[in-house]
């Protein structure tokens, strides 16, 4: 089977314009005859739902939270990239495109990334028009800063709360369409299956999380904007409820899952403090603009710090190893996330880590405060410093922060073509839920950009091309396909409730997380991955025979909700391991120890692995089938990424 990426012909810079002209349009009067389901209300989901409703489609919008405003996009801190070149520092659409392809270690599609860079400028205009309060200069114009891995200042930001402000903008547009009667909201509702009829996506099965009722919803197209799957690791910077269930169940109904092993580990998170830890907190990477990363040169000093016998401030300048500045003089502390994370691991592996667990490095603002004054640092990062102090009880104005890498973002996701359609006709995936734009590593401030690009400026055009081919007839929800899917969902729930074993859902989730982190985390090797596969398979069997889920199905049941999600994470975990094992090269966030340069950097194998790995589900417990989509680079020369 071959995957059709549907990348338009023509020169890179003209592809999107040409495509927009060539795709079919739906008559404005006909749009109101079509229904679209949007699952998820983060940046991608809220922006898509609002924009589609503005065009005239009838939209049903689903989220598992109590309000669309709480989707996890809200927690993004740092910023959003756009090729505005407001700073006159040489930025351009092509440079943003180039940086993103390079940052993704040449494992993304050129055409998609170029389109992303093109529409980035429209996003900023849109958000400002909505009243999003971006940071401004005294002259009243928008301020920018440079952000991890970029040598131009193209990041727009709203203090350390950029995700919140952008999401509230999209949520306001969504609320306006609810008021207009074009969007119907379904909060506290979780998608548990995709319904396909004649191979096309025609609806979803949901569970009302308050009453437990299983419901069917029919539509002409379904958009999954359900975020990433970082919680497969149990500990991540994702929200507690973030899950892969919608995407995974769509995968089992025919949507291929692409590059599942590409996971981003964010270098600046607050280290783990104990077994009770429920999640990890990210400290925006904007901190690396002014903070300097270091560990003691001597293992003895690190040991003393770990035991609390020595304070970091008392370590002399010559005894500090600013290892990023030393190894990467031109990018210094601003190297991309994968590079910064791996290097933190190396120095900790050497025994120079600084927290009691030995798994932390310093991020020090001493010199920035000396240079710019405490007030300026407070204005830039005040809320982040405050958050850090609340969690750790340390004051970063006086003592360096301690940070360590944590799972943050997943570049892999449902395979989509240029129109953002998955391998199931009528099923789209947007934002973090798809795989398309970040290759093997995402650059800072690009996730918000992609979510909003997909929702505001891509799918509203591309969906027409599909919808225009459909009759307006609606499928009734008593159609046998809906009834069958409902029955399967109910059977799955009943099975979970009937096991009544000894171990809690969290026990399983933590075990899965540990396997994934140990063998399929920051660095991987074939031997470890094979062990991990066996362990996950065993865990899956144990889960289905020994999990303890109390209560009933037709009621609010938080344990049941978690059990459904964890059962899907376990299956996904195995696919991630397969993918990591198959990819015999290192690229971006996927670091195979067997494939590294003499200097310990990721070593790609472009001859053999310059492809997207799309996995096709073939049946319960069967090895999934690999389908390759070759990546063709016509505008960018593939090089060894160097940040020295």
């Amino acid at each position, binding site marked *: 089977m071959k995957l059709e990426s549907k990348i338009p012909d023509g020169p890179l810079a003209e592809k999107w314009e040409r495509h927009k002209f060539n795709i079919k349009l739906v008559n404005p009067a006909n749009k109101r005859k079509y229904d679209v389901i949007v699952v998820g209300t983060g940046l991608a989901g809220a922006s898509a739902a609002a924009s589609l409703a503005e065009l005239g489609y009838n939209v049903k919008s689903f989220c598992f939270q109590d*309000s669309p405003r709480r989707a996890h996009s809200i927690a993004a801190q740092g910023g959003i990239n756009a090729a505005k070149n407001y700073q006159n520092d040489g930025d351009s659409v092509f440079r943003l495109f180039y940086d993103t392809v390079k940052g993704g270690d040449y494992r993304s599609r050129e055409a998609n990334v170029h389109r992303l860079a093109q529409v980035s400028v429209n996003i900023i*205009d849109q958000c400002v*028009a909505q*009243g999003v*309060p971006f940071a401004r200069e005294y002259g*009243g114009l928008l301020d920018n800063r440079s952000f991890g891995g970029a040598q131009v200042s193209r990041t727009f930001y709203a203090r350390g709360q950029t995700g919140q402000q952008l999401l509230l903008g999209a949520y306001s547009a969504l609320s306006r369409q609810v008021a207009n009667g074009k969007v119907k909201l379904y909060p506290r509702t979780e998608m548990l299956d995709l319904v396909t009829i004649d191979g096309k996506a025609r609806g979803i099965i949901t569970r009302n999380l308050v009453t437990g009722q299983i419901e069917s919803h029919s539509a002409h197209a379904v958009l999954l904007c359900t975020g990433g799957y970082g919680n497969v690791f149990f500990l991540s910077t994702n929200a507690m409820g973030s899950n892969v269930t919608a995407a995974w169940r769509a995968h089992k109904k025919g949507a291929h899952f692409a590059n599942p092993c590409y996971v981003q580990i964010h270098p600046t998170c607050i280290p783990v403090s104990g077994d009770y830890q*429920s999640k990890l907190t990210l400290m925006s990477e904007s901190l690396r603009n002014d903070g300097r990363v270091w560990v003691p040169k001597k293992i003895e000093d690190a040991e003393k710090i770990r035991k609390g016998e020595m304070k970091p401030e008392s370590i002399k300048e010559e005894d500090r190893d600013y290892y990023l500045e030393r190894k990467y003089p031109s990018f210094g502390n601003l190297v991309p996330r994968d590079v910064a994370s791996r290097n933190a691991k190396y120095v900790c592996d050497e025994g120079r880590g600084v927290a009691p667990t030995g798994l932390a490095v310093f991020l020090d603002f001493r010199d920035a405060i000396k240079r710019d004054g405490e007030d300026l640092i407070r204005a830039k990062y005040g809320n982040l410093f405050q958050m850090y102090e609340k969690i750790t009880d340390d004051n970063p104005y006086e003592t360096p922060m301690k940070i360590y890498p944590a799972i943050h973002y997943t570049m892999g996701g449902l395979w989509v073509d240029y129109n953002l359609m998955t391998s199931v006709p009528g099923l789209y995936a947007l934002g973090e839920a798809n795989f398309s734009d970040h290759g093997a590593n995402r650059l800072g401030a690009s996730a918000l950009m992609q979510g909003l690009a997909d929702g505001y400026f891509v799918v509203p055009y591309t969906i027409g091309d599909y919808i225009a081919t459909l009759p307006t007839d609606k499928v009734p929800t008593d159609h046998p396909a809906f009834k069958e899917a409902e029955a399967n969902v109910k059977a799955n729930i009943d099975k979970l409730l009937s096991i009544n074993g000894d171990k809690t859902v969290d026990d399983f989730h933590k075990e899965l997380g540990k396997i994934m982190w140990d063998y399929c985390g920051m660095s991987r090797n074939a031997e470890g991955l094979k062990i991990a596969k066996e362990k996950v398979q065993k865990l899956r069997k144990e889960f289905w025979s020994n999990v303890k889920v109390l209560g009933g199905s037709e009621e609010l049941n938080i344990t049941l909700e978690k059990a459904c999600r964890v059962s899907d994470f376990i299956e996904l975990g195995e696919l991630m391991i397969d993918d990591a094992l198959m990819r015999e090269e290192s690229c971006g966030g996927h670091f195979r120890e067997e494939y590294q340069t003499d200097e310990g950097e990721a070593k790609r194998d472009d001859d053999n692995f310059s492809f997207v790995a799309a996995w096709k589900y073939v049946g319960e417990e069967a090895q999934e089938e690999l389908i390759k989509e070759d990546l063709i680079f016509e505008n960018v020369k593939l090089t060894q990424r160097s940040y020295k």
Partner: protein
Amino acid sequence: MKLTLKVWRQSKPDKVENGKLISGGGKMETYQVSDVSKDMSFLEMLDVLNEDLLRSGKEPIVFDHDCREGICGMCSMYINGQPHGPQQGTTTCQLHMRSFKDGDTIYIEPWRAKAFPVIKDLMVDRSAFDRIMQAGGYVSVNTGVTVDANEIPIAKSTADKAFDAATCIGCGACVAACKNASAMLFVSAKVSQLSMLPQGKTERKTRVENMVAQMDAEGFGACTNTGACSAECPKGISMEYIARMNREYYGAKLTSNNV
């Protein structure tokens, strides 16, 4: 640390009939927790308790939570009578156990307000906030405007003030803190943000009228300027926005067509 927890347990939801809240009925249950580390967050302490309850075949305590970074606004509970607990400027999820002492007894209850009916245990229905936003908490602009972002310069001082209002996370602590269960701080934050910015000026009159009307229709109480809302707001949103909203409201009413 060893702690005694008194937690509100309620299995049947509250109902609202003819503008009156009918309680689903519930009671305080007592739980002992031990081995509590000072570095745990408050919700992690509840996680540990819930795991223990599950293991002994009892139903876990239901509470809303999601990001655990103090930004999604989902977590919502009174801790010893205070919304989000004793630490100022902090959501429940960001509260750590170092704020408590060994041997403490902690009382944990859901938000209590007519417009926030209890769903189960500590979980309440805050959809009234969404409906207020739908009544006007937006700038009416469709996707695809072509004005360049920098064609709307905004003085930094104005932008910063609007920003302070925009930091509201919609958690409802203001309502929970208010003896009248008023939502004035929440509504005024959005009204102020949009009325201060040039983008929001066109609709400023209808916006404030409609949002206030919806707020009243939802059954929130009146404001008597006690300032409890602002004192308990995890984002420290100032009461001056309430004053600003009142000015906006009176200004709008003077020339209103909705008489």
